[in-house]
């Protein structure tokens, strides 16, 4: 992997996104380094998915700049980013093995061997058609596709929401064990207590702004609370 160390992996400057009359993100600035697992946390509607889509290049900013390894979102950045959307986008009639072939064709950094290995660990039949799989199994297939790439930046939007606790454990250890030590993983989720121990840092979003950036152990050390507890306190309804 060619990593250009002159630039941070991700740099966001004064980013604002307005949907017609709703302000989803309000003047966000954030820099992330390589080799980190970052939790993007916040209540519903705080702007998590909008931020991820902007980084992935699926939305354009209203104001502000995003740089991935020094590139603005575009052809170059998309080759570096492996993105798991918050909903399924694969064609239902396809077989799992066809989708793998499709991905292998599409992404130069995709490893079919890795994908098949993970499928067998999770006991998913490669011959099955997607529409015959349960909701949770479909989510697992999507995550396998995303994690089988050797990307610089993984954007995982709610990767564990729909899967059972055993598979959750496997998925988290896949994220820990699989990714390149120079790559950074951004995980957005509500299930903080499940992911807390795999995270380096957390970014709290609230009302379209960055409310806090901290390392997990700093929160535990300085506040004497787990991230989960702190979240419940900060966002008490």
């Amino acid at each position, binding site marked *: 992997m060619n990593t250009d160390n002159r630039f941070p992996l991700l740099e966001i400057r004064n980013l604002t996104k307005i949907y017609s009359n709703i302000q989803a993100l309000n003047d966000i600035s954030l820099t992330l380094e390589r080799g980190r697992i970052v939790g993007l946390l916040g209540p519903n509607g705080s702007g998590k998915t909008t931020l991820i889509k902007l980084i992935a290049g699926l939305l354009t900013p209203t104001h502000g700049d995003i740089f991935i390894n020094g590139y603005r979102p575009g052809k170059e950045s998309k080759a570096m980013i492996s993105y798991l959307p918050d909903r399924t986008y694969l064609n239902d009639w396809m077989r799992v093995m066809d989708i793998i072939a499709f991905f292998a064709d599409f992404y130069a950094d995709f490893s079919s061997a890795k994908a098949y290995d993970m499928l067998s660990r999770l006991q998913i039949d490669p011959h099955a058609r997607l529409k015959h799989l349960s909701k949770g199994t479909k989510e697992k297939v999507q995550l396998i596709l995303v994690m089988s790439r050797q990307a610089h930046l993984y954007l995982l939007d709610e990767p564990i929401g729909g899967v059972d606790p055993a598979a959750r454990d496997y998925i988290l*250890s896949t994220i*820990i*064990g699989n990714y390149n030590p120079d790559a950074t993983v951004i995980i957005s989720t509500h299930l903080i207590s499940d992911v807390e*121990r*795999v995270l*380096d840092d957390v970014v709290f979003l609230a009302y379209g702004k960055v409310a806090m950036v901290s390392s997990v*152990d700093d929160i535990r050390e300085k506040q004497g609370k787990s991230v989960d507890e702190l979240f419940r306190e900060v966002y008490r309804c």
Partner: protein
Amino acid sequence: MQWQIQGDRPIYIQLLEQIKLGIISGVLPAGSRLPSVRDLAAEAKVNPNTMQKALDELGREGLVFSQRTSGRFITEDRQLLDQLKTELVTQHLEQFLGQMRSIGLTREEVLAIIKDKLSEEEKE
């Protein structure tokens, strides 16, 4: 090894304590080679950087040492291992005595219940 991360204390400290316990109890024998950071992290289901931090601290305390190409090993320094054991025992003992005091037991009562409990366990 069994890993348990819980509560609100820093994760690397909990890892540190559990590796120390593994060393004292012999689950991780003196002189043996530790698995890689990545494998340990995957096993404990924690972030590799957090595991690295725990191992760095163990290194500073002299309990593990790195050999440039072949990985990390647990110290064979008996004196250091004995000292670690004493520290841990003292720590548990102080905690226990503190709890007994807060319940309101006197020294004599504490001694008596310990003797009773031990002879009870002997019979079983």
